[in-house]
């Protein structure tokens, strides 16, 4: 540098300063704008709460949605709801993500080209409905006509659904949910009572569970969790003891005081084995039983003949001493109860219900009750119907999906795309691109639960009769319709008897009619504050009556505002009365012990004995993790993070293998293994489980993993491909190798 600043220097540095100021000023303004943008999302303030109903499963929990300036930010349980009592499970809360799901359908769409990769085009509602109506009208005349699949819900919307499709001449099939629906027929068979079984876990002192996922998601998730908690550490009662008999180490097995690893198809033998010990050791009140049960003698004879502890021990691998101990433990406590998985085989359900009779748990506090109801209509099993379609035994022209539940059931077809190949036209009402929508030719997206009107009959688990009712909690986010108006629009477009069958124009009509019916029934009450105290007070004061309301309209408003209606009157003697009044108890006579067969969730008839293949020495059992077994949106990132916990394998499918096998494969924490069956192979995380029998492995199955959206896709391949064309409800022979 020269000694004195030159003119040139002066100019250059002034220029630099000006440039600096300009740059700085630009930056300052830019920062201001950035600041504004960053602050935008929280620039809200008015907090409100709306009640709604959780539709992630059929438990019908009342929910309370926290809204800030009308946008939902959190879902809690509705404190007034007798099912939820202010609590909620993981799935119910995740419904918030369904509403905001970035991969939701924006509106109706139709498929441009059949086969190959899905290509969609938006369609105005009018055209979409017309297209669907046209196909339905044409299909009405064809041999197998229309097949309509929906989850087995009950309530005004389900009735409307039935009515429209019946009028259209469709065949209705329903996805049975893991609820008491399957237990009910066996209870009728045993006692003659037309009732849902109600297990009073909360007050029992000892629960012997045959695969019932009590701590996961049994019958009614939140109810089961609460019952479990109170069973364990209820107010001023001793700690309940839980023995879990389970093919795998479920969360319930983890929580149990004792876990006996017995494959599901061997569990009935164990149950009958315990029953036979009760007879042998004269721990059964024969006198009392003989007065109600006609075939007690036969039953006893059969048990003592076939189900000797030795036979059962060799069948199930459970040592004789354990069988004896279990039988003795069962009757040594004041209020024992035996429970069973809702989807278990007929034989197992029968055995469990019979055991409850033997230990005197019927209509006893901490025992098994019945909750009377009108007879349920027999409904076609959607999984079986869809398998028939997939395998060409049934050839409908139009297939209608209310949701994807049937395609997620372990008994359903493993490859939904074959349905699209077999059926010329598929309609989906799903608001998400789920398994059904992925194969649909036209999608008429319905609202998501938070946007819907609700009135539904929950799966029976609670003694009280409850109908959660709610108006939409939030504004409709996208171009969707409620089920009521969808059906109405379709009915109008089809015309004729279908239109005549449709007496409503929207779901609101359906729900309001239901609320009106409840108001005029002159019983029950809207959900009330501090549910339990109120209930107790009412019961103590001699009964329950409808809360005084000025008018039916006021009653209805209160039902909608509080989130539902409840009639807590509960006939605690229904099963006993049925025995006394009608036919006597008839024990289902157990068959001779089945021969050893591969383990699995085989339902009676399916369980064909197959010799184990030497190439595929391991029997693989499928299970759905409780946190991911959704009936609605499968694209829920918060739930995917819960998978594989607490074993530390979030976001993955995992296979549980016994320590012996794990040792052989060198499986430590977080090891990937490859499962190979005769049909496909799959890479998953392996989780080592102490005490799991050798030769068996359990694989988690997460629904909607391929189609449903950005997060769902990350889970990967559909594990059910391992099963080929067999339903994943049964065991599959595989080989496991470390990668």
């Amino acid at each position, binding site marked *: 540098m020269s000694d004195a600043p030159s003119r040139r220097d002066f100019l250059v540095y002034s220029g630099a300063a000006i440039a600096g100021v300009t740059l700085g000023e630009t930056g300052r303004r830019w920062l201001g704008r950035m600041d504004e943008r960053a602050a935008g*999302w*929280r620039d*809200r303030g008015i907090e409100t709460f709306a009640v709604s109903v959780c539709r992630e499963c059929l438990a019908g929990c009342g929910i309370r949605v926290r809204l*800030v300036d009308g*946008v*939902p*930010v*959190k*879902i*809690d*349980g509705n404190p007034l709801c007798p099912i939820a009592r*202010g*609590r*909620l*499970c*993981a799935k*119910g*809360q*995740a419904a*918030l*993500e369904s*509403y*905001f799901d*970035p991969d939701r359908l924006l509106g109706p769409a139709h498929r441009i080209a059949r086969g190959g990769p899905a290509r969609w085009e938006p369609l105005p509602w009018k055209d979409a409905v017309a297209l669907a109506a046209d196909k339905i009208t044409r299909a009405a005349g064809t041999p197998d006509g229309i097949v309509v699949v929906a989850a087995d819900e009950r309530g005004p919307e389900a009735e409307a659904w039935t009515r429209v499709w019946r009028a259209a001449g469709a065949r209705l099939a329903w996805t049975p949910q893991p609820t008491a629906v399957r237990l009910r027929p066996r209870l009728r068979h045993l006692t003659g009572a037309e009732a849902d079984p109600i297990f009073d876990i909360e007050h029992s002192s000892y629960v012997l569970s045959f695969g019932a996922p009590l*701590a*996961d*998601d049994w019958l009614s*998730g939140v109810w089961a*969790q*609460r019952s*479990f*908690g*109170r069973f*364990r*550490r209820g107010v001023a009662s001793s*700690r309940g003891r839980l023995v879990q008999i389970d093919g795998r*180490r479920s*969360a*319930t097995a*983890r*929580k149990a*005081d*004792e*876990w006996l690893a017995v494959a599901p198809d061997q569990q009935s033998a164990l149950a009958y084995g315990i029953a036979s010990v009760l007879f042998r050791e004269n721990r059964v009140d024969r006198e009392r039983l003989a007065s109600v049960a006609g075939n007690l003698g036969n039953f006893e004879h059969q048990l003592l003949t076939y189900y000797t502890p030795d036979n059962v021990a060799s069948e199930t691998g459970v040592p004789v001493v354990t069988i004896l101990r279990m039988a003795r433990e069962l009757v040594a406590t004041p209020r024992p109860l035996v429970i069973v998985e809702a989807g278990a085989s007929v034989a197992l359900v029968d055995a469990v219900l019979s055991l409850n009779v033997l230990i005197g748990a019927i209509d006893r506090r901490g025992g098994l009750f019945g909750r009377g109801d009108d007879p349920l209509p027999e409904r076609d099993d959607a999984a079986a119907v869809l398998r028939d379609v997939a395998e060409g035994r049934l050839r409908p022209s139009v297939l209608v999906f209310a949701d994807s539940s049937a395609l997620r059931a372990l008994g359903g077809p493993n490859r939904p795309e074959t349905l699209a190949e077999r059926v010329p036209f598929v309609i989906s009402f799903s608001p998400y691109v789920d398994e059904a929508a992925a194969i649909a030719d036209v999608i008429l997206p319905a609202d998501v639960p938070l946007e819907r009107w609700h009135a539904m009959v929950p799966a029976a688990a609670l003694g009280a009769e409850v109908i959660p009712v709610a108006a939409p909690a939030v504004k409709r986010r996208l171009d969707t319709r409620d089920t009521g108006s969808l059906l109405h629009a379709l009915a109008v477009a089809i015309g004729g008897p279908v239109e005549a069958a449709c007496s409503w124009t929207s779901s609101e009509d359906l729900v309001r009619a239901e609320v009106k019916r409840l108001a005029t029934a002159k019983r029950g009450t809207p959900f009330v504050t501090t549910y339990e105290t109120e209930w107790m007070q009412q019961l103590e004061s001699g009964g329950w009556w409808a809360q005084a309301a000025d008018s039916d309209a006021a009653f209805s408003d209160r039902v909608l505002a509080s989130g539902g209606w409840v009639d807590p009157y509960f006939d605690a003697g229904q099963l006993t009365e049925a025995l006394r009044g009608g036919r006597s108890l008839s024990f289902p006579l157990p068959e001779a012990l089945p021969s050893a067969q591969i383990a699995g969730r085989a339902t009676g008839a399916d369980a064909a004995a197959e010799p184990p293949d030497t190439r595929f020495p391991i029997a693989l059992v499928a299970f759905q993790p*409780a*946190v991911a077994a959704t009936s609605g949106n499968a694209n829920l990132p*918060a739930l995917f*993070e*819960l998978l594989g*916990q*607490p*074993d*530390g394998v*979030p*976001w993955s499918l995992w296979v549980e293998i016994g320590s012996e096998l794990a040792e052989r494969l060198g499986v430590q924490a977080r090891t990937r293994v490859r499962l190979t069956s005769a049909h496909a192979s799959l890479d998953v995380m392996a989780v080592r489980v*102490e*005490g799991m029998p050798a030769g068996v492995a359990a694989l988690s199955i997460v629904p909607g993993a391929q189609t449903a959206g950005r*997060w769902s896709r*990350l*889970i990967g391949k559909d594990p059910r491909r391992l099963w080929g064309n067999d339903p994943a409800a049964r065991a599959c022979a595989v080989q496991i190798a470390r990668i």
Partner: protein
Amino acid sequence: MSRWGLVIDLDRCTGCQACVVACKHENNLPFSTPETADVGRLMTWIQLVAADLPGRPMPSSLPLMCQQCDRPPCTDVCPTSATYLNPEGIVAQIYPRCIGCRYCTNACPYAVKIFNWTEPEWPESMAGMRNPDVSARPKGVVEKCTFCHHRLIAARERARVAGRELAPEDYVPACVQICPAEAMTFGDLSDPHSDVAALASGPRAFRWMEELGTQPKVVYLREGE
């Protein structure tokens, strides 16, 4: 001065993870992906871990969150006092002060302090689901369970505006509120009449890894008889 404490009854807990989702939504925790989860970048303030506890046949599932120690190993090591024990016993993390050195995460024997490896992101359509009462932490800072401290602030304000004392039911963290098995009890440990104080001094109560001298205010109740 209150000393907030939480009691988790492991006998009641079913491991359903409802608390995990409640916490996630309440506290604006961003979602992970399989890749990020695989390298320990799951953003959870409470999570289920398999802990070997004495007297249990297999590892118990234990809901693990910040144990809100009375002698927190994490606060001592923080070079900037970004994490400290507040007067009510909550171990707080002051995000704008944190330099992201992750010394506290390493000092914590429970591994419950979580680091923001990346800027938290929500898809555009999900922007609205965040709780405006809680900030979205920027990348590069450590965060942790605060016992839903924002709920305490709001509850205290409501009580003061209404001119009354804070009642026990006014302030409950999201996890406790949601727990379907009623396994969690929250309250003031310094109030001898509170449920938590009674449970925390009961025969089944234990503090996890208390042999390290951390003096946690999350108290577990032992499973089994």
